[in-house]
């Protein structure tokens, strides 16, 4: 089967984007992706749009963009996997090329969450578990689901709220160096600790924000890479995918996400990775809240179960530490426009591996491999993707 490479990337500024509508926001990341790959819209054979969309007006974004960006009459679809929507969109593009059905696919992730007022977004996002048994009857919110993981984790391993706060401090540290990030401001542990509770034990600064944004990658087959003479590219080495139960009460424990462990195992096996810390140069993990970043360290095997909080406490996931994680600011401070997040992670992998990251947040690239861990819901969907400079 053919290898699949990212040959062009684009990223909009993440944040409150009242200055643009949906197609304008999409074009902000599509245009640089086309320029980067030296391609025209007419060259694209198939395109996929990752968008969750219940809070925004336009449902048929593929058609909207077919019109706005001259992609008609090429085939397309919109895909959804909660907060892992972006990675699911990449999955569709990746498998389309792998299967030989397409050679050039555009993958766009977009979310315009602020087309609805915040209370509506909070109301809608709480439904991404089991709507009936968790939200309708017990009023769980999205922070609430992860808060139950945070509190179980603290009870089992003795981690503290300060440990989680350090994850937020790191996120803001790197977001301050990322011109596309929503919060470009450093914070300290005291600021996090002083914040009001959103869902105990998670406080305001433990939470990712409500964000508008888009990100775009253009994927190509090996044949196309040769034909176009593409020099700058990053290969998708592998992707593992998992699904978890809707009801949290159907799970065995709350200190780990089984779907993420399952996805990681597949991704590592397919990419030939047995010691991730030694074989990867860094990672983007799904820090929709601080505690799940710590849990992700463990689910991805960056440390043993129960030791993730020590990596956070000791600052081992900064550049120069054991393994750099979320050095773009993560969902927490870069922002989390649901459908765009997984694609944004791919853009970051491309930038890091090709040493194009901004000053102060470029990791040391020795192995030429970067990991993206993108979770939908609370482990309802899990995508682990490994990107590399050398095709396997």
């Amino acid at each position: 089967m053919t290898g699949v490479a990212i040959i062009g990337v684009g990223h909009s500024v993440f944040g409150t984007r009242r200055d643009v509508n949906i197609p304008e926001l999409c074009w902000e990341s599509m245009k640089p992706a086309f320029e980067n790959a030296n391609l025209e819209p007419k060259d694209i054979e198939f395109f996929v749009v990752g968008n969750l969309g219940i809070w925004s007006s336009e449902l048929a974004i593929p058609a909207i963009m077919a019109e706005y960006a001259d992609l008609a009459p090429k085939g397309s679809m919109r895909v959804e996997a909660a907060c892992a929507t972006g990675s699911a969109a990449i999955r569709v593009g990746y498998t389309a090329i792998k299967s030989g059905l397409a050679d050039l696919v555009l993958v766009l992730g977009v979310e315009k969450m602020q087309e609805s007022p915040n209370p509506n977004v909070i109301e809608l996002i709480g439904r991404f578990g089991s709507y009936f048994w968790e939200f309708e009857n017990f009023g769980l919110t999205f922070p609430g689901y992860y808060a139950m993981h945070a509190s179980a984790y603290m009870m089992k391993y003795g981690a503290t709220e300060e440990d989680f706060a350090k994850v937020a401090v790191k996120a803001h540290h790197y977001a301050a160096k990322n011109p596309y990030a929503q919060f470009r401001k450093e914070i300290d542990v005291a600021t996090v600790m002083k914040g009001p509770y959103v869902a105990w034990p998670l406080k305001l600064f433990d939470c990712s924000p409500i964000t508008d944004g888009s990100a775009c990658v253009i994927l190509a087959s090996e044949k196309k890479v040769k034909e176009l003479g593409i020099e700058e590219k990053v290969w998708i080495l592998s992707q593992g995918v998992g699904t978890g139960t809707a009801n949290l009460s159907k799970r065995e424990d709350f200190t780990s996400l089984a779907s993420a462990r399952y996805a990681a195992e597949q991704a590592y096996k397919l990419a030939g990775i047995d010691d991730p810390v030694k074989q990867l140069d860094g990672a983007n993990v799904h820090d929709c809240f601080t505690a799940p970043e710590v849990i992700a360290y463990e689910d991805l095997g960056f440390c043993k179960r129960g030791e993730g909080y020590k990596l956070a406490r000791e600052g081992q996931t900064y550049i120069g530490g054991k393994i750099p994680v979320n050095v773009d600011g993560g969902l927490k401070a870069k922002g989390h426009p649901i459908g765009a997040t997984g694609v944004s992670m791919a853009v970051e992998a491309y930038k890091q591996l090709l040493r194009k990251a901004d000053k102060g947040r470029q990791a040391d690239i020795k192995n030429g491999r970067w990991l993206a861990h993108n979770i939908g819901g609370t482990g309802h969907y899990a995508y682990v993707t490994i990107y590399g400079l050398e095709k396997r």
Partner: protein
Amino acid sequence: MDVKEAIEKMGFPIIPDEKSNAWQWFDVRELKLRYILSVEGIKKFYEGLKEGKLLATKCKCGRIFFPPQKDCPSCKKSEMDWIELKKEGVLETLTVIHVRPTSFSHYDPYAVGIAKLDDGVRILAWYRGEPKLKPGQRVKVEIVKRKEGYQTYELVPI
């Protein structure tokens, strides 16, 4: 400024954003969402709850389902027995929802927990009591009415 005022003032339902001054069109077609969900397949659960019983389904193959489920994927059968759960177990996790959805704004911050019942199944429910999580905390399930006026269930520390 509301939409009506905006139309009068601006000629359109357009309100400039307070912070950025960027023009925002305020949708005039408001949508109210209320779903209609079938509970026909688990109606015994509600009949039980009315009598103060917490019911689960149990397949002939021995598998217990809570929340109750009509069909068993293990043996593909759908002839479930309804069994009463013991209503006692161990609290496994807990949160307190401070930022509430609008549809729950009539509540003060509320606690929700998950317990593993002695029958082996887990249950997610309201939690009533001091919101403290400690290993091995025993809880019981109490069937109560909350503000909405229908019966629901709470975890209460023993």
